[in-house]
């Protein structure tokens, strides 16, 4: 029986950040999918049902706080841990992230080892959070922008 691999969604407008995070996590045998803006992030969440989301705050079209709120309001996806990745390290920004429903907050520039540790911490028992779903019952996320 093949061993299931957790999938992590990385949402960041910088291709460098997406690539580095992908490279770092793949080394830890974690499957990584990426999105460069809010809308494609929501599409990926609905299609791929990631075990964890790494979410940048400053994104084109829709900011990270907004995406986080949308996911938290959805019954199917509200259990997914969301780690905010941001260059803003003020207390207010962290509070805002917390209020939007983020699980953890990592400040850029982040350390690769710290990133791996944080991701692994939230991937414990990830399979328990995954609802069994058939093709016909694929969850939908709607954005009323």
């Amino acid at each position, binding site marked *: 029986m093949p061993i299931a691999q957790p999938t992590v969604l990385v949402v960041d407008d910088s291709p460098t950040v997406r*690539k*580095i995070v992908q490279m770092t996590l793949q080394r830890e045998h974690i499957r990584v999918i990426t999105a460069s803006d809010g809308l494609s992030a929501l599409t990926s969440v609905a299609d791929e049902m990631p075990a964890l989301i790494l979410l940048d705050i400053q994104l084109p079209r829709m900011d990270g706080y907004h995406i986080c709120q949308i996911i938290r309001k959805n019954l199917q996806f509200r259990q997914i841990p969301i780690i905010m990745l941001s260059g803003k390290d003020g207390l207010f920004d962290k509070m805002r992230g917390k209020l939007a429903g983020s699980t953890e907050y990592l400040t850029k*520039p982040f350390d690769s080892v710290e990133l791996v540790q944080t991701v692994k911490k939230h991937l414990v028992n990830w399979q328990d959070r995954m609802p069994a779903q058939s093709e016909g019952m694929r969850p939908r996320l709607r954005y009323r922008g």
Partner: protein
Amino acid sequence: MDQQDRIMDGDLQTLGLQSILKMLALSEKTGKLFVSSGPETLSISLRKGQIVGLHEEGVAQSDLLGMLCLVNKLDPPRAQMIREMAQGNMQMALAMLVERGWMSANEMQRCLEFAVTQSISHALRWVNGRFAFHRQIVPLETTMQPLNIDSVLLEALRQADEWEEIVGEGLTHLTRTTVARWLPEVSNDVRSLGLSQEYIEVLCLANGELPLQAVSLVLMTPEARVARIMVRLLELRLIEVVDTAMETELQQDLSNVIIKCQYTLAYQRHSSHPEQHLLGLITTLSECINGLLSHHGKFARSLRGRGQLPSAEIVRYLERRFAPSLQTLAKQHSILETATFAYGQLDCSDILTLNKVVKGEQLEEFYWEAVQGLAAFLRFVFTTLLTDEVGNSHTGRQLSVAWKVFLSEIDHEVQQYQVYRAHRHTQMARGRDTMQSSPVGLMQNLNGTPERDGGLRSPETQRRSI
């Protein structure tokens, strides 16, 4: 363990492993002998002076069943079934294979005997270390037939001599923990290379995960022989050596440098004034170069693995390696003459404080030249560094991709400025035409109104805003 049970202990320098084993064999002792050197420990179970079991600690246990699959001696589904039942116990796994008729009892015995000989051969080469014999630890019943210490020692010493020979010949820098992997250029059909079966088997097992010692065990070929084959395969450029721990650390360190530079770049991006934008790019580029230089000071091939080096040596190395290229680039971009190496870092403070010396268009020109020069130097530093540190390995290729992505972000910023520059030149040309026809246009250009408002916006955006 009770002190009284330990009937013999001491230093390996005083009494070597060979003598200890001989002594225990002659006196037909039963118990467990512990031999340790550094992080490694070997425990040899004896019954009436014969070896009945051996356990190695401090060495990662390889998946023997997976290895048997790689050399086509076992089906993957069968291996998976046995793996789940044996739960990492090699002896139990082999016994199950025999029970199911997937391996002969003889083959199992040979395999276990080989594993014991291989471990003892390795321990025979330990110079420093301790040993202790405990008589009360009676070994459990095992599937292995008891082994005669003399015959094991004879073969183990022969294998140890082979290793010494290799080291003496200066043939290889390989160790029993060396991991090798196929180079991506290797085509699927290795038969066309005219290699012998032995070479092909080693090649098949060089999957980037198995250490030399594990390859040796599954093929039941002495480690020194496997090392010789690997040397030949390396020469043929069919495999490459992987230092997994070092490569992981290297990748993490370099990733951190890139992430920090990307952050600086994103932070500087907000400035819309051209001079500030260029200054931001210079800061990013110089920070990035210095980050890479610091990294290379830790991971350069000729510096690593030598413990804590004096910083002066690292500085000398970095300057010797990179200063000539900086000087060459300074011939094309003369502003780089003001950048110097200090303590293994590129000092760009003269460029960054140019605003105290010049201003206006001249300052912008200097900044632009510095951006172009530093961008070229940055590319050179990274290429040199990557080739030296990891070469054309899997890690090297991955880092190269990440680096190209980061460079594309820098290029995008540079292009934005180029667009702005082109636009400004067009505006100035138009301004000259207007100047000839209208005195109002002259006033506007002298005030520089369009640029002040427009900043780094593209001509398209500016057109729309007008």
